[in-house]
């Protein structure tokens, strides 16, 4: 028996440890290290000097901090609205047409998610370029219109589109599988009672998938709070003075920006720590709300 136990634990250790080690070393340890770095004035000299909470005081008195917070709220709220709204429309549309077309539609809309980010950003920047050579502007000129300074003037909608085309497929996939699992009798009964298509969507489908909607909102709020790759690749915080600089992008610029002011790791870590704490609190709340524990049924036997 003892021997069997030893064999069992050896097997478990051998198979579990590689994953555990790489996650502890490259995900857990850096999270803790980030918090520690925020208490130092680590910079380009890479000297470790504790400075207590002074980086946090600096954040509180940073005249630009309210701009970054406001931008983060605009970015998350706008992209989230696009993601969930378009995702929902796509799910409804693709489940109410011929199955072949519906499946094709979902496959095509899923594609931006697998495209390399630099390619997507490049095409979008060229399509919405404020210059005359941009695709939309050359189209406008061809039709006799005036060029529009797309990314200069409509920078937020532009960012919602760039991010939204990637993000909306999550909602689309989850919502459409939820809609497909609604019993047909419910829809039929409503139709017999004379309900219109819109009423069926509002009164039957939406209430039945409200948990899925809540889940996507929760999940994407968390990931958008710390997302900056497409902003970095397109507008990079501009145009103008910090007009699209979100908190996490400012952290990136403080640490790895092109300017002399960069490599301020200590102060940059404050931004990240704040986002980590917000993210942790939010995920604990979601954990309770969505009863994720039920997903973790214990194995029946060994």
């Amino acid at each position, binding site marked *: 028996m003892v021997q069997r136990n030893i064999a069992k634990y050896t097997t478990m250790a051998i198979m579990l440890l*590689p994953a555990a080690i790489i996650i502890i070393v*490259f995900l857990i*340890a850096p999270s803790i290290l*980030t918090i520690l770095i925020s208490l130092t004035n680590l910079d380009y000299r890479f000297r470790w000097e504790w400075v207590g909470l002074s980086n946090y005081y600096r954040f509180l008195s940073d005249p630009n901090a309210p701009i970054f917070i406001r931008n983060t709220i605009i970015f998350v709220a706008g992209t989230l609205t696009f993601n969930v709204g378009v995702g929902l429309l796509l799910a409804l549309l693709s489940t109410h047409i011929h199955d072949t*077309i519906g499946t094709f*539609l979902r496959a*095509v809309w899923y594609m931006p998610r697998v495209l390399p980010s630099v390619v997507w950003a490049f095409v979008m920047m060229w399509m919405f370029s404020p210059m005359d050579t941009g695709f939309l502007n050359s189209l406008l000129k061809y039709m006799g219109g005036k060029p529009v300074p797309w990314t200069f003037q409509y920078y937020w909608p532009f960012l919602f589109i760039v991010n939204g085309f990637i993000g909306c497929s999550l909602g689309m996939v989850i919502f459409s599988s939820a809609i497909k699992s609604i019993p047909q009798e419910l829809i039929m009964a409503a139709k017999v009672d004379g309900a219109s298509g819109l009423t069926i969507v509002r009164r039957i489908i939406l209430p039945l998938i409200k948990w899925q909607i809540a889940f996507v909102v929760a999940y994407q709020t968390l990931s958008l709070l*710390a997302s900056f790759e497409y902003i970095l690749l397109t507008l990079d915080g501009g145009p103008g003075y910090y007009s699209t600089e979100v908190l996490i992008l400012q952290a990136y610029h403080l640490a790895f920006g092109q300017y002399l002011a960069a490599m301020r790791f200590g102060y940059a870590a404050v931004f990240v720590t704040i986002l980590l704490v917000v993210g942790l609190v939010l*995920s604990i709340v979601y954990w309770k709300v969505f009863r994720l524990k039920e997903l973790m049924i214990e194995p029946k036997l060994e």
Partner: protein
Amino acid sequence: MVKAKSLILNMVGLLVALIPLVPIGLLVALAFSESQVQPQGFTTKNFDFLKTGTLFANDPVYSKLYPNVYSVALNTFLLAVGNMLIVVLISSMAGYIISRYSFKGRSALLGSFLVIHGVPASVLLIALYYMLKSLGLLNTLLGVILVKVAVDTPLGVWVLKGFYDSIPWDIEIASLVDGASRLGAFRRIMLPLVAPGIFAVGLFSFLSGWGEYIFVYTFIQSSKNWTFSMLIQSLVGEMGGINLALIAALSMIYLVPVIILFVVGEKYLVRVTIGGIKG
């Protein structure tokens, strides 16, 4: 009446399905265009770099600024394959243990995987930079691969656990009764049965490594270790307004494996997206 409505709805569906294809179509048109800034005419001259791998072969100054395209392609491939192999190996083992063994801290472990997966790893860049610098892994592909593996593994474990869960216990017990060891049953019985899951995770982690930008951009300086994403983004930065056609041609080469793998494995990739959050 109902028929006409359904026909219109189907037409709308078809039109909407074409929207994400517009940017891709424009990219292809630009790549074969005679004009350098908009789709005009047809030429293959933008792909001339494929002959020797040298960009701007006619310009002695510019051609030295950029690495050989084939060495860039090799780096991108190494990052993608390295990420894929390690993620598949370690998450197929860990997923099995988490699915089949009960032990202390199991649900805490699973929960932490879920939480970690929800928060993008880009928040850890500052600490990771410091760690890679201390380990001497800054400016190496290996450093990027290790970070990438750590980021993709929680999802891989979570998805494969789901695949193991869906295999009935009877099959495993039968082989144990027949005298197979636990490890033997895992290798010979379980692994072949979760092959679709392994394929899905492999595909996902290959594409994730292939398209990676932020980690390469942040951790790699020397252009001999560049990947496609770095090369394209640096061309966009240096001459964004001048030679778009060349960037589009490079992007097309970059996209070829992505499109092929997407067409082959779209169903599996969707499974990873759902599996990653629903178990």
